[in-house]
Every structure is written in structure tokens, then in C-alpha cells.
């Protein structure tokens, strides 16, 4: 069951690589939150119920409700155009995403470890590098934020892999998640929308050496 969920998770990455609209990205982020909710439910069977309830609550409320709702609110409020405006064509994106996943599968095959389920490793690292790729190839600041959210989801998957042995680390990951998202989204996306109209990375190049 966990494997099925994680494979669906990887498929969402492919979908994100070729999606054009920002609303699609937000929906995919929400879907990833739901998938993570079920992964947590099946995976963390050995930790105490209160902590489990807290983690489940965080995935469903924070990852799949609060963040997507807030992102779409930002989209509407700042009148951001709906296109994602990638630097590269979708086909190239798809090829690069595929190669990220393949390379990670190869790495996972090389590293043989009884303590770690291989699929967790593949999904986590693919998501991480896909998030970095997303940040590097999209023009809008809000897509950078979405890329960061994708990275956070990847890290969360990795922390789940060892969650049964060290539940503390899952909680730390959640703390990072909430802290960074609130800092980035709450404080700065709001302000940036007020100051820069139709937020584009090209506008953030005034800090120069000369």
C-alpha cells in the first residue's frame, strides 16, 4: 500500500513537470499532502498515538489545506497570470525529471541498506532534486515557493523512512516545514505582492556590485 502511494507521489512530479497553469501546481501540492497523510497512516505504526495524530493533522491541515488555500489566495490577490512560464519546453522538463528519477533509482540500487526501504530513498531524493529543478527553471517567484514546498515534501518522505526509530526527527521536520512556510509565505509573499506587481525574478536584480 505504501509503495503504491509513493509511486503515485512520483507520478505527481511528472505531472507537475509538464503542467502549464499555476492552479494545477497548487492542486498537485494539495494532492501530495493527501498522499503523505496516508503514507504516514500506514508507515508510522510503531509510534505513540498522540504523536501520530499530531503528524496526521499536520499533513492534512497544513500541507493539503492551509498552504494550497493560501497560495491560491496570493494568486488572486496579486493578479498573478495563470501561466507558469517555464524557461524550458515541457518535453525537456519531462526528460530531465525522468533522468532525475532514473539516476536516483540507480543510486539506490548501488547503496544496499537493510535499514532503509529503497523506495523511500528514491522518492525523497527525486522529489528534492525535482524541487530544485523547478526553482531553477521557472520565472515567477511564486513558483519558486511551490518548488520549495515540493522539496519540503521530499524531506518529509525521507524523515518518514526512519520515523519509526526516531519519531523526534519527524517532529523536527514538521517544525521546519511550518517555520519556513510561515516565514516565506506569510511574511514575504504578502509583502512582495504589495511592492512588486506581477512578481517575476527579473525584477529582483537591483542588488548589484557596482
Amino acid at each position: 500500500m505504501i509503495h503504491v502511494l509513493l509511486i503515485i507521489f512520483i507520478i505527481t512530479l511528472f505531472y507537475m513537470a509538464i503542467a502549464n497553469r499555476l492552479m494545477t501546481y497548487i492542486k498537485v501540492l494539495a494532492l501530495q499532502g493527501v498522499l503523505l497523510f496516508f503514507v504516514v497512516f500506514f508507515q508510522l505504526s510503531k509510534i505513540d498515538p498522540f504523536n501520530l495524530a499530531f503528524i496526521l493533522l499536520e499533513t492534512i491541515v497544513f500541507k493539503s489545506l492551509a498552504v494550497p488555500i493560501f497560495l491560491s489566495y496570493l494568486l488572486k490577490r496579486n493578479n498573478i497570470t495563470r501561466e507558469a512560464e517555464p524557461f524550458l519546453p515541457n518535453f525537456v522538463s519531462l526528460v530531465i525529471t525522468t533522468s532525475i528519477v532514473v539516476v536516483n533509482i540507480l543510486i539506490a540500487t548501488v547503496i544496499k541498506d537493510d535499514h532503509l526501504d529503497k523506495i523511500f530513498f528514491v522518492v525523497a531524493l527525486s522529489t528534492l532534486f525535482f524541487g530544485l529543478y523547478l526553482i531553477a527553471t521557472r520565472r515567477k517567484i511564486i513558483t519558486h515557493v511551490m518548488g520549495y514546498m515540493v522539496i519540503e515534501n521530499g524531506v518529509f518522505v525521507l524523515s518518514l523512512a526512519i520515523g519509526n526509530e526516531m519519531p523526534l526527527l519527524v517532529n523536527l521536520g514538521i517544525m521546519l516545514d511550518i517555520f519556513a512556510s510561515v516565514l516565506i509565505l506569510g511574511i514575504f509573499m504578502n509583502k512582495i505582492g504589495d511592492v512588486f506587481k506581477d512578481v517575476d525574478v527579473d525584477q529582483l536584480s537591483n542588488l548589484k556590485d557596482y
Partner: protein
Amino acid sequence: MVITYLIVSVAIVISLFLLRDKRLVYSLLGLFLVWQGWFTTQACLHFGTTDAVYFTYDSLGILLLVTLSIIAVPAALHSYIYIENHYEPPRSRSIYIGSLVLLIMAISAGYLSNHIAVTWIFTEITTLSASALIYHHRNKLALEGTWKYVFICAISITFIFIGILFLSLSLQHAGSDDLSFSNLLAKSKELNPVWLQMAFLFIFTGFTAKLGLVPMFTAGIDAKDTAPAPAGALMASVLMNLGFVGIFRFYIVIANTPLLHWAKLVVGIAAFLSLFVATVYMLKVKNVKRMFAYSGIEHMGIVMLGVAAGGIGYYAAILHIVLHAFVKSSLFFQYNQLYRVFQNKSITHIGNYFKYNPTGAMVLLLGFISSAAMPPSGLFVSEFLIFKSLFDAKQIFVLIAVLLLLTMIIWSFGKNIFKVLFVPAEGFDDSRVARTSPWESLSQFLLLATAVYLGLNPPPIFVQLIKESLILLPQ
């Protein structure tokens, strides 16, 4: 004691955020400085003990904590001068002072923590407080700087977290789940090398955002440029040292495994690239503040080269970060007085500073000599030792390349500083230049003199502390 320190400091921070009255805000800042001084003394008195499970008053922590507490005093003083000269609204003043206190508190706790996750948490808090300081002016440039800083720091903090996850995987092979540095060191022989390598790569990359090394150095440059100079001084000195502590404590663990050689290679490559990048930017930079910031990148590159070379290089690296903190912060403290005269950051619009403020110009001159590691400066000793360690490690080609890069950096730094000091700026109207009190430069002279004293004639206790912090490294 740490817990009391943290609770009282957080209480001070919260009341600073809430209070608007000028006298109350400044007296709370003074109170915090006294509190910080008391805590530092207590930490020195309890040397070697562990407090509240996660904090140890060890030699490296104590050394840097004392450095921080010394630099915090002029930072507070210059923040006061800065805010009073800018007619800040009460709200922005409260937030600035509150964030400054929070930053100093988080750095102190980060130095002393003996658990990698705790270091990580306090590094997160420094990101939060530093971003409030960078955003102080609330204009477009400040917003851009803050955004870049927050975003890159968020990514690097995530990287450190991934590193911690890999580290815990590595530790599971040793049958343990305690991530404190001492336990990691005790179990260092049983750690799984593959996961340990991944952990080191991610943790190293993550902490470079604070340390100011390739690949994540860009965030710090923009931050030091846009933050008010007294806050920038803290970011360019003690906050960088926090990044060093994070890397160095983990490096000690990995140095006791067979991966030592590999780790040296990673650190060495990153350090050399940082020197290279710093040279490239130093050659074309025209913004005084960014020039100081790039000089910091150069120095951190030298420090990490010392770590990579090993031997006497370890000793020199720690000596160098302490001395560099004093020198670089004094340059940043001087910057605001420079700005008050010329109202410009660009070197093309600044010049002949000796005419307007001879005392301040002396600070810049001595700061340049110190930063370029010319003989009376203490940094000369540490840089010389680092070059010697590179020589001992038979890295003669690296040494030659480093010396060439440093020559270019000194040439470019010197060219710009002497332009600022002696060559009149074109079209500058000096009829309305603000007078600066020479006393405002006193703290900078003291800091520079401290760096000279510690470098040329280090007191035995100072040498002892540095040597003790290296005791766990294989010699």
C-alpha cells in the same frame, strides 16, 4: 543556567517587540548586554560542564562566545547611534533592537550546543532574526535582499535537515539514536560510511549559507549589503562563526573515521572555489559594503583551507576566525560614519575621506591592513600558519594559486580603499558634510587592537582554549 539565559532573553525580546518607549527600549538593550556578560562569565566559570543535556561549555564554544559578547557591546552602541541618526519610528526601532537581541541569543546558544539538531534549531532562529534585521528599511532593495536571504537560508536549512536524516541512518548501523556530537564521536568507527558521506555533503552545503562559502555564499552578501551596518557587522563576523561551528563539530566526527581524506578534499575544493569567487567579485565590486562582505568570503575560504590542510592549519583556522571577527566587525561599524559623510555606497562617489573624518579614515586604513593580513595585523600570523600547513601537506600548487588569488584581492581591495581615503570624488559637494565625533571610532580601534594583540602575543589561556578545541582531531 542556559535555560534561564534563554528564558530571560526571550522575555527581553518579547518585551522589546511590545514596548515603544525610547528609554525603556534602550535600557532593556543595556540590561540584555549585562545579562549576556553575566552569562558569558558563568559559562567560563562552569568550563567543561554540560548544562540542560544539550549544551556543553567546551573550549570552542567558550572562545567564540566570549568573542560574540565582546562584539555585541559595540554592535549595540552603534545600533543606538544608527537609529538616533535616522529618526526611526518607534515601531521599527523596537523591532530592530528586539531582533538584534534575538540574533545574539540564538548565536550564543548555537555555539554551545552539543547536539547537531539543537545547533540546527538555533541556526533556524538566526535566519528568522537576521531576516527581520535585513528588512529594517522596508524598501524595495531591502525586500529583495530579505527575500533572497530567506529563500536561500530556507533551502540550506532543509539541506542540513536532510544531512541529519542521513546521519541518523548512518548511526542506526551503530545501533544508537543519540545524535549528540560526543556520541557520534564515540560511535565514529561503526558509522556507515556511505550515509556518512551523504550526511557530510548535505550538512556542509547547508552550513555554507551561514559560513559564506561556495555554493551558498550569495545570500550572505545581499544580507550584509542591505542590513543596517551594525547588524551587518554581526552577520559578517559572529554569524559566520556559527556556520563554522556547525561544520567544524561535524568535521571532528568525520575526521575520526576513514573518510578523513575524502572530507578534506571536499572542504578543500569548496574553500579554493570560494577564494576564486571572492577574487572575481573583488576585482569588479564598486559597493563598499559588498566589498567588505566579499572580503569575508575570502577569509572563510582561507580558514577552510587551513582545516583541509590539517596539522598546524587547524590551530590557525580557529585563530583566524576569532581575529577575523574582530577586524571585519570593526570595518562594518565604521561604514555608517562613512555613509553619513557621502550618502552613497558606491566607490565612484566616495573619496578623500581623510579630509572629512581623519579618525574614521585611520580605522579604514588599519582595517584594510589587518584584513589584508599585513605584518602588524594578527591575521598575518594565522594566514602565515595556514600557508605553512598547506606547505606541510605538500599542496604546493594549491599554495601558489592561493597566493596569486590573494595578491589580486589585496591589489583590488587596496586600490578601492586608497581611492576612498585619498582621491577626491568627482562632483561631491562638501559644503554640507556632517561632522562625526571621533569618539565613535573608539570601539573600532579597540577591536582592531585586540586582533593585533591576540595575533602577535596571544595570552596563554587563549592558546590553551584553541588547543583544547582541537584535542579530538587526529593529529
